[in-house]
């Protein structure tokens, strides 16, 4: 899809839709128990509160490097990852906190990782852009735009090679579609019928460059050149994300067919926290999304309509998510940093074993 500037805020409703989701009746959504619906909502709120809590920590200087926040896009990761079976795998780029929480990672090691602590999910060696949880089929967390897409294709290759009925979801932003590695992966996946979904989270901006200034044509449609099916859907309603991806995932698992799924979403914060976010988009545009399409508000309204959520429960979930993020900060604060001796651990599988398999010098140290 092509991103157009929204109509001015005044001409639109200033509230998220309170009409029922047209995707609630999709079988994958109709089958959800109330508890499962609440869990989808809770995960989105937990991602939002976790990331909001990261901001003051970052601003206080306790988080180094970059911090790419996912705020506004929560329905995508939560919707997608809620569909994962035991042989399904996920990989994404550097805006990876949402997927990490969506697959079930604990927020304490996530926050500790941002602090660079040894208790972090990557022992303080990866940072914000490099979260991993292979035990949850979550393969990162990758820093180079588009570089993770061949890896995701390889996950799908392995699933197929091993005769399992699973699929890989390889997430990328709209900027990644112009990287060569992405197109090479498209070709391989289509050529070899690999069960991989290339999920484009189209938030309209590759860093500070709008889609219309960076990408020719329609993003999802590029799949056609590879004879690949593509889906386009909204990313503000978690039910819609689930309905679309369920169809694509089922096809991938059952028929071992790849697809491109382009999901329309929006980020409220800058590309990273270091982005002043003043040069390339209008504040009114952000406000319009917040007011009319916020994925948490949209789903909250839906679940209230369904009488699944009550004001008291909404408040309880929010308070618990805030408390959870506080506990994550406390955990991170109280945790130790890695030591200099940890720098050369986790480099080679071999040198992490009690006994090396090779001889000779593998690290070269200076005084």
């Amino acid at each position, binding site marked *: 899809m092509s991103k157009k500037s929204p109509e001015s805020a005044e001409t639109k409703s200033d509230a998220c839709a309170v009409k029922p989701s047209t995707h609630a009746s999709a079988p994958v959504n109709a089958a959800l128990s109330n508890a499962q619906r609440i869990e989808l909502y809770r995960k989105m709120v937990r991602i939002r509160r976790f990331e909001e809590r990261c901001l003051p920590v970052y601003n206080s200087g306790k988080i180094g490097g970059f911090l790419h926040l996912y705020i506004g896009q929560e329905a995508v990761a939560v919707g997608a990852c809620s569909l994962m079976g035991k042989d399904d795998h996920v990989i994404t780029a550097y805006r990876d906190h949402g997927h990490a929480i969506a697959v079930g990672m604990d927020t304490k090691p996530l926050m500790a990782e941002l602090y660079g602590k040894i208790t972090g999910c990557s022992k303080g060696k990866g940072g914000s852009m490099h979260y991993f949880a292979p035990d949850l089929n979550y393969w990162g967390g990758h820093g180079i735009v588009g570089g993770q897409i061949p890896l995701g294709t*390889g996950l799908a290759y392995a699933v197929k*090679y091993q005769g399992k009925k699973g699929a890989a979801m390889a997430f990328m932003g709209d900027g990644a579609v112009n990287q060569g590695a992405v197109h090479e992966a498209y070709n391989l996946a289509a050529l070899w019928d690999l069960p991989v979904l290339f999920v484009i989270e189209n938030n309209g901006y590759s860093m500070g460059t709008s889609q219309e200034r960076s990408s020719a044509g329609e993003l999802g449609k590029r799949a056609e050149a590879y004879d690949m099916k593509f889906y386009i859907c909204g990313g503000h309603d978690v039910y819609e994300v689930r309905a679309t991806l369920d169809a694509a995932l089922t096809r991938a698992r059952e028929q071992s067919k790849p697809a491109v799924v382009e999901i329309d979403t929006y980020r409220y914060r800058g590309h990273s926290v270091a982005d002043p976010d003043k040069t390339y988009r209008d504040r009114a545009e952000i406000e319009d999304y917040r007011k009319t399409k916020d994925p948490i508000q949209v789903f909250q309204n839906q679940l209230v309509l369904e009488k699944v959520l009550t004001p008291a429960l909404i408040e309880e979930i929010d308070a618990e998510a805030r408390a959870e993020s506080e506990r994550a900060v406390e955990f991170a604060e109280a945790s130790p940093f890695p030591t200099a001796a940890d720098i050369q651990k986790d480099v080679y599988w071999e040198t992490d074993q009690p006994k090396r398999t090779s001889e000779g010098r593998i690290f070269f140290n200076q005084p």
Partner: protein
Amino acid sequence: MPVLTYREAIRAALSEEIERDPNVVIMGEEVAQFNGAYKVTEGMLEKYGPKRIVDTPISEAGFIGMGIGASMLGIRPVMELMFWSFYSVAFDQIVNNAANVRYMSGGQIACPIVIRGPANGGTNVGATHSHTVENILAHHPGLKVVVPSNAADAKALMKTAIRDNDPVMFLENTILYGEKGEVPEGDITLPFGRAAIARTGKDLTIVTYGRCVLHSLAAAETLRASKGFDIEIIDLRTIRPLDVDTILRSVAKTHRLLIVEEQRPYCSIGSHIAAIVQEEAFDELDAPILRVGTIDAPSIYSPPVEKQQIPNVDRVIAGILRLL
């Protein structure tokens, strides 16, 4: 003992490992139907079928990255680069993904991939196809770098590489593919990081690897005959890990070190070894450490001149004569 070419020895290792481990897959451009651009994988498609021997499109970033991803889930892909020179289009996948994924995940992920192919000059294919990339690869912690000089080592080291749980960069040589050597039968592996003493001697140490071992042996024989020099030659076999102890022991015996490599001098493997030796064996040296390598320019096409650009027996002799 059977005599095999270097090419056949690698093929034997690949075949034996395919038979041993169902997770081993051979992939690359022209490895299957075409029987390999350099025939290393000749006959393997017919024998092992298209699930195990896989032709890829010309798409190095895509298929190398795919292999890295598959290896994270326990596949053991052996990816052929038709020339190591083509690694540049897959460089991000190799140095950011293969080398770093274990580290950035805090040790949660292993990446048991082998990337193999020839990395050498001397075949008149011009600058784009003649890169010797061992220094660039070895610069990245997380990667292992293997540079066999003969058929027996190539087979044993390839078997070790495939069984290794770290990413192994295996650098062959198109000119060595036809070189014959005795290769012991059976399931023989060689640990990485154990150099071979290709020739024992007392007057000077040559540290070398790959095809330059052959030049060094020829130069040593020539100078033994003409001048009675007794030269020790160390074949590194692997660049990372590096058998520093064997180098230092030899230097302690001969007190003179010549490094012969098919690298350009700036930031070469030889630079690294020279730094280590002067740091750790300064008092053993009776002469400056010298290097003989590739003349510092892109690889020239002109066939007779390229022979002079890369190390050859005459240039190795000239190097030795500056030290003895």
